[in-house]
């Protein structure tokens, strides 16, 4: 993980002092709310239904155990003892007072955490594959490039007042776990036919009111050109993105209205004069950042050690968890462990301060002090020795993060919805909780296999419902909560938006509909190992529609 030097630390401290002054000027009335709002948003401070919310960046989802302990401290000292992990690898605290925010931010700054640019019309937290650095199928660690971009785009004087928010994601693995095709800029690292590594640059993807899959405007960008090319894209967007209508202000609309080819030409014109300037990434510059990435000294270990085999054979609960939540690591004898934050009947993605502290301790003991946050709102311990898995599992089970439902129907991704968010039309958390209760039988959940449900409480799509295998969108009809259901969306290399299943259904019926969809899948699949998404791709939406809406 990246270790801050004194430049990084100083910047965060200066930012805290700046924000403290801004809060002071707001409380005294010197700044109006209209003047203050963009400033607080640029520090991740929202106003929600009941209170202010602070969104803290976890760059590319990597956290140290000390940082996790500080999050627990903030939850206890300034909030209500819990935090919520988001679909963009951030964490949110829902109850913070504005008056206390500068102090909370000062505490966070001590471990290099901040809320810079987690909101507002600027470049947001840059996300990657939560397995970056340890995944067997990656060609290199995408986080180094994410960090180079993060620094370049932090407090960038030209791009702090864009037409709208801007989200960038990177992947360097064969399988895209970062959903790069539904971001404003998606960067897919790959090798060309000459064996060189570079980026496929995809722009104009996004969800929300007008969802789009991104378009490739440069199939292969050499690494050296990463910063200058992104600069050219942002400069083009800053100048020509629409500012007359907030629903048409994202880059996806500009790309759609100009056409991908014309947009690419505009970027090229902007890029040519700067590609060999100060932003060219020479080896020294890349090495400079890379040297501050610390990798754990993982010992050479035997694969499939005897104690693991014994535990697997001896304890069915352990075996079930092992098969569900533990994944191959690039190093022999090691594993990537997912901690499910989706217990039955609880809000998805939340963790108590107590859990955070316990996870930090486990990270120190079993994962070289490192934790990852996934955009599916689960946590990951990325460097676990296989021989430690039985002991780790018992500890995770005790703190309630070992539900073996990773990737299954009850591993739901949901936005906070109307229980918290002032933009929402409908609640999402109780819908998620009810669905997990319907599928709490693990045999049933396992028999359904990989099945991603995404719930958004409004069209802003923070739950990413468009790319869910089952997508649920909260809408309002005559003051009542209704839910529109889509099926067949996916976020990976074969990214596709879901297809509407039928008319929206009321709050009281949405869990029934999900059960009906699951039952339809079981009936329609060709074999038990044909995943839901493949069944949908084979038969289309009609057979599902017939069964769900006939069941009435």
């Amino acid at each position, binding site marked *: 993980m990246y270790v801050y*030097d004194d*430049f*990084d630390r*100083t*910047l965060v401290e*200066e*930012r805290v*002092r*700046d924000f403290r002054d*801004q809060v002071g000027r707001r409380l005294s009335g*010197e700044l109006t709310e209209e*003047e203050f709002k*963009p*400033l607080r948003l640029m520090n991740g401070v929202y106003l929600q239904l009941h209170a202010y919310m602070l969104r803290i960046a976890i760059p590319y989802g990597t956290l140290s155990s000390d940082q996790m302990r500080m999050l627990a401290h903030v939850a206890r000292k300034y909030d209500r003892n819990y935090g919520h992990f988001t679909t963009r690898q951030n964490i949110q605290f829902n109850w913070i007072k504005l008056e206390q925010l500068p102090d909370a931010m000062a505490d966070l700054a001590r471990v290099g955490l901040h809320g810079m640019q987690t909101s507002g*019309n600027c470049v947001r937290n840059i996300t990657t594959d939560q397995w970056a650095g340890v995944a067997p199928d990656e060609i290199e660690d995408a986080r180094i490039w994410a960090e180079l971009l993060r*620094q*370049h*785009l*932090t*407090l*960038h*004087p*030209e*791009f*702090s*007042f*864009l037409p709208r928010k801007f989200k960038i994601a990177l992947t360097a693995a064969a399988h895209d776990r970062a959903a790069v095709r539904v971001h404003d800029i998606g960067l897919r690292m790959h090798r060309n036919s000459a064996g060189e590594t570079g980026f496929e640059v995809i722009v104009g993807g996004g969800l929300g009111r007008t969802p789009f899959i991104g378009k490739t405007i440069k199939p292969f960008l050499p690494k050296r050109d990463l910063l200058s090319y992104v600069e050219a894209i942002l*400069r083009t967007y*800053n*100048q020509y993105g629409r*500012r007359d209508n907030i629903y048409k202000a994202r880059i996806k609309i500009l790309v759609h209205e100009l056409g991908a080819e014309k947009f690419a030409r505009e970027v090229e014109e902007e890029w040519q*004069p700067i590609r060999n300037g*100060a*932003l060219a990434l020479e080896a*020294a*510059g890349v090495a*400079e950042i890379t040297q501050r990435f610390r990798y754990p000294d993982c010992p050479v270990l035997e694969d499939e050690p005897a104690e693991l085999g014994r535990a697997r054979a001896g304890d069915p609960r352990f075996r079930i968890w092992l098969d569900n939540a533990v994944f191959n690591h690039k190093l022999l004898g090691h594993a990537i462990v997912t901690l499910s934050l989706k217990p039955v009947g609880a809000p998805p993605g939340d963790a108590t301060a107590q859990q955070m502290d316990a996870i930090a301790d486990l990270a120190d003991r079993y994962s070289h002090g490192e934790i990852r946050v996934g955009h599916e709102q689960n946590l990951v311990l990325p460097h676990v020795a296989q021989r430690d898995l039985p002991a780790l599992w018992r500890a995770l089970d005790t703190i309630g993060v070992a539900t073996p439902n990773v990737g299954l129907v009850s591993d739901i991704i949901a936005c906070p919805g109307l229980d918290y968010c002032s933009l929402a039309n409908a609640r999402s958390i109780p819908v998620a909780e009810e669905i997990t209760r319907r599928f709490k039988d693990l045999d049933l959940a396992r028999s359904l296999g990989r099945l991603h449900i995404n719930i958004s409480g409004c069209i802003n799509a923070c739950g990413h419902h468009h790319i869910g295998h089952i997508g649920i969108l909260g809408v309002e009809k005559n003051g009542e909560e209704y839910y529109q259901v889509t099926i067949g969306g996916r976020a990976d290399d074969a990214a596709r938006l879901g297809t509407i299943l039928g008319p929206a259904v009321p709050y009281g019926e949405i869990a029934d509909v999900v059960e009906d969809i699951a039952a339809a899948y079981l009936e329609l699949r060709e074999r038990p190992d044909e995943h839901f998404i493949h069944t949908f791709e084979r038969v289309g939406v009609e057979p599902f529609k017939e069964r769900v809406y006939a069941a009435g």
Partner: protein
Amino acid sequence: MPLVKAGRIVDDRFVRVLDDAPVPDDVPIILPAARLLADARELVLRRAPTGVVWPNDRRIAELAPYLDWIALVALVFPSFRDGRAYSQARLLRERHRFGGELRATGQILRDQFLFLQRAGFDAFEVTKDRDAAAFVEAVRRYSVFYQPTGDGRTSTLTARLARGAPSRGQRGLVR
């Protein structure tokens, strides 16, 4: 609306000329863009400095042919949240090497001073008196700048590389 240059509130020696008004001789003036483009052939002959207000939705490339004799370009922030003129400023300074006065106008608030300066502005029509008085303090808020712009401040990459090269010691850090 106080004008800040070189960290101080100063009198504005430029006079704004509205669309069809006659152009005074021997007085520095700022004209609307349309006027500049229409009358450029006469204006270039003026002895006194000529400036232009350039709207934030027109390409700087259109202004480029005149930059070798224009003394001042005023760019516009209709709302401080509309950041188009930051790009325009950087293009003027860094692409077209404009050396005259680059003035920020519109809604100009304290919390944008440093961004504006980094983008190349050297004159500021500040919306609030109190903000104008705080200019120097506001631009000293930060000492770390990740990205290089045309403003001459050392970027962190430059500072880090200078520090990291043992044979050069600390000299490279000084600006």
